[in-house]
């Protein structure tokens, strides 16, 4: 056990399949969501403590920077949720081999993209 064994896990030399990318992004979005909880709690608190605060949240926060921050947080949430549902599908025994895993990764990525664009439309345009 104490013998030094060779390790080759230089990920930068690998060509990764789509399943790897959606998995890594699932992690990245999860870590981002950990910090987003502060934003969500702050928005909830603001919307509940005063009429002006409620209006401010309801009218999409006035400033484009704040809109972008909320859009990014909600996008991370949408992506993480969709990829989490994909995990539940795999837990039930579907999509566990490489081909079907690639297929569910593509479907989930498409659904997540559609949700992220819809959220953007809701925040920035509507």
């Amino acid at each position, binding site marked *: 056990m104490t013998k030094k064994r060779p*390790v080759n896990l230089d990920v930068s030399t690998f060509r990764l399949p789509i399943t790897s990318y959606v998995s890594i992004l699932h*992690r990245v979005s*999860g*870590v981002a*969501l*950990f910090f987003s*909880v*502060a934003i969500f*709690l702050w928005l*909830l*608190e603001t*919307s*509940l*403590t005063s*009429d002006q605060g*409620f*209006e401010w949240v*309801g009218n999409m926060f006035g400033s484009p920077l704040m809109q972008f921050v909320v859009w990014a947080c909600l996008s991370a*949430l949408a992506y993480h*949720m969709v990829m*989490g*549902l994909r995990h*539940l599908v795999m*837990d039930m025994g579907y999509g566990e081999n490489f081909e079907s895993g690639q297929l569910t990764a593509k479907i989930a990525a498409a659904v997540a993209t559609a949700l992220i664009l819809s959220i953007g439309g809701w925040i920035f345009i509507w």
Partner: protein
Amino acid sequence: MVTSITSLGRSGLSDWMLQRVAAAVMTAYVIFITAYLMVNPDLSYEQWRGLHSSLPMRMFSLMTILSIAAHAWIGMWCVFTDYVTVRLIGPKATIVRIFFQLSMITITLLYVVWAIDILWGM
């Protein structure tokens, strides 16, 4: 048997289960809030406050923040124990990881207390 003192459930299987139960609660919450905002496009401040001060909604929100805490704890633990390791960042990894984990746990508990303060202090 190797056990970890910083994982939430102290066992991989219980963490696995907890992660999924917590995910289901959070998903239900997100779907509920989204649907509520969609069917009430002209939502008023009073109505919004009324919703969140009702006991069932307070319970639902509390369950959700507790789920967030459990889910985040387990998820962040996975990330830290995968990347903040002696092999990847050197001999100081263990102390750095413990620091990150304790910070994560502190932030998680602060979120829970903050949420309770919002829900019961309004």
